[in-house]
């Protein structure tokens, strides 16, 4: 094989392997060593060794096992040199060997429990939400700190500091490295899901002109959700969230025109949607619904499924969409959900009742650009054009998103 194409193949395989194996290795080493920084450094060293060796010698048959062997050897070298581990060296050595034994049982280098431990610890409610997000992306998804910073539009030093502080709190406040007990699990799982959904939404709101790291947050979040779904296949809300993300991603190509302009749902070319992926996501959603433990992510995915499987905007089952929003409102009492319900109501019953449904939301949503943009849309339909322009101006003043700003500015200019 020519060196260049071999290099490309190694790069692609390495990227896939890193994503899958890195978190796995870090998770097990954190458990065994009890030190997050040392665990991450050892895995980093193993990855660097792979980058040096694989392009020269070709890819190993089981890249995960290869990385494990290197990480374990380096861990033992390091522990022997470090006085802090002297008393526990024998025990740690045994546990490092066990990492290997389990490889034969599970087919992968390690059992999956450690990654669950890692995820639940990163999303512990005793950490700030920003810290939970940064730590999860850095440690479980393996994003480098600068990439996390670019994705969230904050300085790199801020992200680094959040991660350092979070690790310090985990150590000093005694946050345990474990999956919560069954009694605590529903609340703690909801916390993990909300972190993953927040990451997804950050990426979803990014416009096509922004840094790729920002848009890739969607796929990072979907990967984390699919990992969680593999580890907890009997939790319907996990499957619901994964279905929700996939139903968004399957239609992502239609959201922006060739020139980068945002295209809203009614105007999207449904031919650009990935209908096979939509079908798979709907199947996943149906699997979660059969477990008969409803929750907000399943309902949101069901709403998206209505849109994603409709032949056209006009042929959407708006009655079902409104009913699902009603269900969601009972679960969440969110004004944003009420806003979306009003928009579905506009399609089912007309603009006037929808406008009336928006009115009681104003005191909670006056600062939210989509509240004003939605009002503008309904007012336009009712022919109240001056009021519509006012509402669009308010919306424009309240969004920082370049694609949304452009859409609103064009709308204002065209009247």
């Amino acid at each position: 094989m020519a060196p260049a194409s071999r290099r490309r193949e190694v790069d692609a395989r390495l990227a896939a392997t890193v994503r899958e194996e890195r978190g796995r290795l870090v998770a097990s080493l954190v458990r065994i060593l009890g030190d997050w920084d040392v665990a991450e450094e050892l895995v980093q060293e193993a990855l660097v060794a792979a980058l040096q060796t694989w392009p020269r010698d070709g890819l190993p048959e089981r890249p995960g096992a290869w990385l494990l062997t290197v990480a374990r050897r380096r861990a033992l070298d390091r522990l022997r040199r470090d006085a802090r581990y002297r008393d526990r060296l024998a025990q740690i050595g045994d546990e490092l060997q066990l990492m290997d034994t389990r490889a034969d049982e599970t087919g992968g280098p390690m059992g999956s429990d450690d990654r669950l431990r890692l995820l639940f610890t990163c999303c512990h409610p005793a950490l700030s939400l920003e810290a939970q997000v940064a730590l999860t992306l850095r440690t479980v998804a393996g994003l480098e700190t600068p990439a996390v910073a670019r994705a969230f539009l904050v300085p790199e030093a801020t992200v680094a500091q959040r991660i350092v502080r979070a690790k310090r709190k985990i150590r000093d406040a005694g946050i345990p490295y474990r999956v919560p007990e069954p009694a605590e699990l529903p609340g703690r799982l909801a916390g993990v899901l909300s972190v993953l959904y927040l990451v997804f939404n950050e990426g979803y709101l990014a416009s096509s002109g922004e840094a790729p790291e920002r848009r890739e947050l969607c796929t990072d979040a979907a990967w984390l959700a699919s990992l969680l779904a593999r580890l907890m296949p009997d939790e319907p809300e996990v499957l619901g969230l994964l279905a929700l993300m996939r139903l968004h991603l399957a239609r992502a190509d239609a959201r922006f025109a060739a020139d980068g302009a945002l295209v809203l749902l009614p105007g999207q070319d449904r031919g650009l949607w990935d209908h096979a992926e939509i079908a798979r996501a709907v199947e996943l959603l149906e699997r979660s619904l059969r477990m008969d433990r409803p929750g907000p992510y399943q309902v949101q995915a069901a709403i998206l499924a209505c849109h994603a499987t409709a032949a056209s905007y006009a042929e959407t089952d708006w009655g079902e969409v409104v009913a699902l929003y009603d269900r969601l409102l009972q679960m969440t009492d969110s004004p944003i959900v009420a806003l979306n319900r009003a928009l579905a109501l506009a399609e089912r019953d007309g603009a006037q009742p929808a406008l009336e449904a928006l009115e009681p939301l104003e005191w909670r949503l006056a600062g939210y650009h989509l509240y004003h943009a939605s009002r503008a849309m309904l007012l336009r339909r009712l022919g109240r054009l001056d009021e519509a322009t006012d509402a669009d101006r308010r919306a424009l003043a309240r969004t920082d998103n370049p694609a949304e700003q452009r859409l609103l500015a064009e709308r204002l200019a065209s009247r």
Partner: protein
Amino acid sequence: MRYMMLICDNGAWEPLSEEENRALYGRIASWWDEHRQAGRIVEGHQLQPPDTATTVRRAPDGNVTVTDGPFLEAKEVVGGYGIIDVADLDAAIALASGWPAPDTIEIRPVIE
């Protein structure tokens, strides 16, 4: 691990009748005894109200001033404390979650 539980009155107390008050203090006492006997509570006390507090400030030059009242003017006032000894933060959270009164509890690890 040892943690300090700072038990703060967060203003969520409804005025209680004397009888309800006695019942609540009874629940607090039996909760405390249960965890103390199990070794989860090392020690602790209820404190007199903040208007009994005296603040002593020592300046870098060694000068000492004594003033009346608590040093923090806060809506939430510390009404008691406990030193607890449990496995980890989750165990501390679980313990604090069982506190029988509508209070806010701050959990801080103790440096040992």
